[in-house]
C-alpha cells in the first residue's frame, strides 16, 4: 500500500529529472514537491524526521522562489 502511494511521486520526479537539465535539478520546484511527497509517505506521522523533511522542503522552495522573484521584491519594490 505504502509503495503504491510512492508511485505517482516517483513518476513525477523521474519525469522532471528527465525533462530538466542536471543544472536545473536543484531549482526545480516540482521535483522538490515530489521529494516531499516521498518523504511524507516513508516517514511516520508527527515524527521528527517528517518535521525536518517539511521544514527543509519549505526552505528549499523559498530559496527557489526567491531566486526568481527576490530581485523584484527587494530591488524594485513592486
Amino acid at each position: 500500500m505504502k509503495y503504491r502511494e510512492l508511485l505517482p511521486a516517483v513518476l513525477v520526479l523521474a519525469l522532471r529529472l528527465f525533462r530538466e537539465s542536471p543544472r536545473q535539478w536543484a531549482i526545480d520546484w516540482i521535483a522538490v514537491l515530489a521529494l516531499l511527497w516521498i518523504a511524507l509517505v516513508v516517514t511516520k506521522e508527527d515524527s521528527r524526521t517528517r518535521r525536518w523533511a517539511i521544514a527543509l522542503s519549505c526552505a528549499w522552495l523559498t530559496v527557489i522562489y526567491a531566486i526568481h522573484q527576490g530581485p523584484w521584491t527587494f530591488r524594485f519594490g513592486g
Partner: protein
Amino acid sequence: MIVFRVLGLLLATGGCGAAAAACLPALGLESRNARLLAFLLLFTAIQSLLILAAGLGGFLSVWPLTVLGTAGAAFLLRSRGAGGTLALRVPDRSELLFVVATGIALLSLLIKAFLLTPYTGDALQYHLPKIAEWVQAGRFRWGTNHDPRVWFSGGFELVETWWVVFLHHDALIELGGLQMALIAVAAIATLAEAHDARPGLAVLAYLFIPAVLLNASACGNDLAIAALTLAGYAMVAGGAPRPLQLFPLLLAVGVKATGGFAALGVVAYAALRKWPGRPLPRPASLALLASGMLLAVFWYARNLLVAGHPLYPFYGSHGEFTWSPQQAGVDVLSLQSTIQVLDLRMLDREPYESLNRLNSGWGWAILPLGFPALLLGLRGDRRLLPLLLSFVLAAGVTLACVTFDDSNLRFILWFPAIFALALARRPAPVWTAAVLLACALNFAATLSPSERHHSDHIRPPASLPPTESVACVFDQCASSYRLYNHDFSRRVFYPRSMEELRASGARFVYMVGTPEWARPVRQWPAIAKDYYEVP
C-alpha cells in the same frame, strides 16, 4: 455642492446597506461569516440593480439615485423592520493579529483608492470609457467605440459607476475593487470555517496574494470574478440553501463570462456534498433568483437585441471589428499550452502586476508554503479533496475557454484560495509566522504598483486644453479613459472616417496606430506625441 454630493453618496450607500440588512433574516443563516457574506452580496446586487434601473431609465445622476436609494431603504425598513444584524464580535487574542493585519491590508487599499488613478490597459481601454460615457450622458450608451470588448458584460462596471456617479468624479472608483476584496474576505472566512481552518489566517494568506492586492486597486474585473466564485463555494460549503448558492454565480456571469466557466466547479463541488436540506421561503428564493438572473442575463439580452446574438462580438458580428478579443469556444490547446508554462509562471520571474503578465502573481506564501501545506492537508484529511477536485475542474474549464496568452492566469484568481485554506489548517505557530512573513513581503512588493509607471506616457499632455473635446482615432484599441478627465468634463469622440472626424467638431485628435483613412492626420500640427490639432 461637493458636500451635497458626498452626502448623497453616503445616504444612498447607507440605504443599500440598510436594505441588504433588512433582507438578511429571510435567508436564515447561522454562521456570522456566512451572514456577512450574504449581506455583502445583497448590498452589491441592490447597488447594481439601482444603477441598472437608472442607466436604462435615464436618471443616472446624484439626486435621483440618492432619493431612490434612501426611499427604497426606508420602505424596506418600515415593512420588514431593522432586519438582521451582522453580529460582528470582538476578536479574541489568538485572532487579534490576523484581524489587525487584514485591517492594514484593507486600509492600504482604501488609501490607494484615494491616491491612485486607474492605470491598467484593459480598464483604460474599454471598462472605464463606458462608465465615463454613461456618467456624461446620465444614461447607458451602447457601443461607445469600435473596440469589440466594449460589448462584454458590464456587471462590475455597475458597481464602479456607483462610486463615481454621485461625485461626478472618479476619485473613489477603486472602491469597487475594495468592495470585491471584502466579498473575497468574507467568502474565504466562511470556507475556512467549513473546513476546520482558522478563518483569520486563511483570509490573510489570500488577501495578501500580490495579484489580489493589485487587482483590488486596478479597476479590473478579475477580482470580482474571484470573489463571487469563492462566494459560491463558500455558500455551498456553509450549507446555505440552493438559491443562495446560485446567487453569487449569477452575479459572476453578469461580470464576465469566465464566471460561468468557474461556476461549473462550484456545481461539481455542490454535487459532491450532501443536499443542504434547508429550503428558503418561496418569496426569498424568487427574489434572489430573479434579481440574480436579471443581473446575469441583462448583458447577453442586450447583445441579442442590439447586435443579433447574445455572444456578440464573437458571433453575430457584421464585420465591423478587425480582431477577435477572445477565442469564443473551447480549445483544449489553450489549456495544454498553459499547463506547459505553469511551472515557470509559478516562479513569478517578473514584477507583480494586476494582469499577471508571465506570472501567476500568487506571491511568497503560495509556492513555498501553500503547496507543501496542501500535500500535508490532503494526506491528513480527505475532506479537502472534493474542494481541490472542483477547483481543478473549474480552472481547467476556464483555461480551455480563454485564449492562451501571457496573462491568462488572472482568470483563475480564485484558485490560490485552496492553498490559503490548507495553510490555515496547519496548527503549528511556525506556519503562522512563515505566512505572516510572506504576507509582509507581498505587501511591500505591491505597495507601489509597477504598471502605474508604464501608464504614465498615456496621460494627456499639458498642451491639450483641459475641456476641449478630442477625437480618439485608433485601429484596434486605445487607452482613452484619461481623455475624459477625472470629472468627466471632456467630450471624447471616436470617428471612423474623416467625415465623422470633421462632423464631430473636435479640435484635437489623439491617434493610436494609423487607420488607412486617417493617414493625413499624421501630417497635421502636433501638440505632443500622438496628439494633433485639427487644421
